[in-house]
């Protein structure tokens, strides 16, 4: 296993050493780091498009009544906003970008177990995204079902549902293959001496995520094909007029789509677990509890799907069973938060941009999590179901959680990715705008949601005007913050980054910035008494 290559320092992975140069070298590369970056670029484009669609919705909602477009366009906008953000940004999200870039290095491997399959997953991702987006321009107009494609409306609408559904199906395949690749990589390619309980916690979170990807995604794949079959062949799976059951669709859809929330959030939690000990220069508190809580979240998170369906007409028995299970999943999530806070306690904290974003994550995730409990409780759920309160809650988890962890991860691993530092002052300003804008955008939605503002409505009563307008200004601040972040990271080259700019202890900080093609010149080993976070 051990190879000694000490004669010549290997060129960085950013240098084209293969058959092709330039763009072709990137598009044909099976290197996990390049594939991770390609996912990142693609996601930033999709995120910008999805965000722009969100701002278009906020412009329409600035005053009650119709402003610049009608209800059908609004329905199309929130549907494609959801499809882009959920299926092409947050579900692949951190796992595809940072799982690819960092995980193999963190476990001491040269690459993932199946590099070609990894590139194939990326192309499936691009293909799936292209098919989903094409739904906007082909057939009888953009789909108007919402990203959930609820039957029987998705069976009956004349809009272009099939392309969007098939795009999501292809994206699911990409997710399954990435998950499979990561499971095998972590089982088979860890450095000598690195037992499972010596593996860093970001890979642990990816391991739990990968199992959900492999086990849950096929269910939604089949469900989406059933929608297509029902539309084309008139088989009565879900449409009552054909003898089907619409609640069955909701069961099948949420059996995947709730665990998908954990596909999104678990890697985010993993990133935060890496950042906090590094910037507190302190051993992680409760290593095993964090590792096992990832698996617990993955497992329990699989059985809470029907809390999306309390008002769908399910049996009362099912409703209280799922309400109970929903409360159980809060336990491992809270374990993580307590451990992060305990790690920071008495640490020597340095307030660098990644740490600021990690703190932002904890704050926003806690608000998202606590409001999730009021939604998980059967009695309160029925009052706020399908209101703006739900919109605020899931944005606090999906954007406040996953989004902020994504930004934290970019700022954390950027010096390793490009071998360059960035302007901390600008990065801090991006945090101020993103954090303020985020809260101004989504917090009013909690208030108007409780007051009775329904979600997915193009028009509203005058008493919701102030809340909607505050949200608009929040969206503008958020967009400015994102633009500042892009300028900070990509406008000009920063100073050369040292190998270990943050004083991290995991393997990626022991190799050059940017890393050589095969990551390690000498394959690393983990000593018997060594730990992943052995800060003194």
């Amino acid at each position, binding site marked *: 296993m051990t190879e000694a290559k000490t004669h010549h320092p290997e060129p960085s992975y950013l240098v084209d050493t293969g058959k092709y140069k330039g763009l072709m070298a990137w598009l044909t590369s099976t290197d996990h780091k390049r594939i991770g970056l390609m996912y990142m670029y693609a996601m930033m484009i999709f995120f910008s498009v999805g965000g722009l669609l969100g701002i278009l919705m906020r412009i329409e909602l600035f005053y009650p009544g119709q402003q610049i477009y009608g209800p059908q366009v609004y329905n199309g906008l929130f549907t494609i906003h959801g499809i882009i953000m959920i299926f092409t940004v947050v579900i692949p999200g951190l796992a595809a970008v940072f799982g690819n870039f960092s995980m193999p290095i963190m476990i001491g491997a040269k690459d993932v177990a199946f590099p070609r399959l990894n590139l194939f997953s990326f192309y499936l991702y691009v293909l799936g995204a292209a098919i989903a987006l094409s739904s906007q321009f082909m057939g009888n107009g953009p789909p108007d079902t919402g990203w959930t494609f609820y039957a029987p409306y998705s069976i009956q609408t004349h809009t272009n549902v099939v392309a969007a559904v098939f795009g999501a199906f292809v994206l699911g395949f990409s997710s399954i293959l990435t998950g499979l690749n990561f499971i095998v990589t972590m089982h088979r390619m860890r450095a000598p001496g690195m037992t499972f309980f010596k593996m860093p916690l970001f890979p642990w979170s990816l391991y739990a995520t990968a199992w959900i990807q492999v086990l849950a995604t096929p269910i939604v794949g089949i469900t989406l094909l059933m929608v297509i079959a029902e539309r084309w062949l008139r088989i009565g799976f879900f449409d009552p007029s054909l003898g089907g059951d619409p609640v069955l669709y909701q069961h099948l859809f949420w059996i995947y789509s709730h665990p998908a929330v954990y596909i999104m959030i678990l890697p985010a939690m993993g990133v935060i677990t890496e950042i906090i000990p590094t910037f507190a220069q302190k051993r992680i508190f409760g290593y095993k509890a964090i590792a096992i809580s990832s698996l617990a979240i993955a497992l329990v998170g699989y059985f809470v799907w029907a809390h999306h369906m309390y008002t769908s007409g*399910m*049996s*009362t028995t099912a409703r209280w069973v799922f309400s109970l299970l929903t409360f159980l999943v809060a336990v491992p999530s809270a374990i993580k938060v307590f451990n992060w806070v305990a790690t920071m306690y008495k640490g020597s904290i340095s307030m660098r941009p990644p740490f600021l974003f990690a703190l932002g994550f904890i704050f926003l995730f806690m608000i998202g999590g606590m409001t999730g409990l009021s939604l998980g409780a059967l009695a309160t759920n029925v009052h706020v179901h399908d209101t703006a309160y739900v919109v605020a809650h899931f944005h606090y988890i999906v954007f406040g959680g996953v989004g902020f962890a994504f930004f934290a991860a970019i700022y954390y691993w950027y010096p390793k990715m490009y071998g360059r530092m960035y302007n901390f002052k600008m990065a801090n300003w991006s945090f101020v705008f993103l954090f303020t804008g985020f809260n101004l955008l989504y917090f009013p939605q909690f208030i108007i949601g409780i007051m009775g503002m329904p979600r997915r409505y193009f028009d509203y009563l005058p008493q919701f005007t102030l809340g909607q307008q505050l949200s608009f200004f929040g969206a503008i601040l958020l967009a400015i913050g994102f633009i500042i972040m892009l300028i900070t990271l990509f406008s000009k080259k920063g100073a050369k980054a040292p190998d270990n700019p943050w004083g991290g202890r995991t393997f990626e900080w022991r190799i050059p910035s940017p890393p050589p093609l095969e990551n390690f010149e000498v394959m690393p080993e983990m000593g018997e008494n060594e730990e992943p976070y052995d800060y003194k």
Partner: protein
Amino acid sequence: METETVHITPYRAHAWVLITLLALTFLTITVTWIDLSALTVLVAMLIASVKAYIVLTYFMHLKFESSLFRVFVIMVLAIYVLVILFTLSDYLFR
């Protein structure tokens, strides 16, 4: 790296598995001609389970793999059973 022993299943075993699977498929079709009322689905599922077991054991090589793989398969089946049970908590009590 761990050393691995590669097990090669003889053609004869594969042939027997194929014949068994075809016979069970024939049995599945046969039972549809008999009126078993409520038991129809149960019998069909039982036959399908036996077929799945044979495929997993021989074609998918579980018989010759380490117990880790068996644990994973059992875990997946357990999750599948739980998903069905929780879904039935809706359908049986409406």
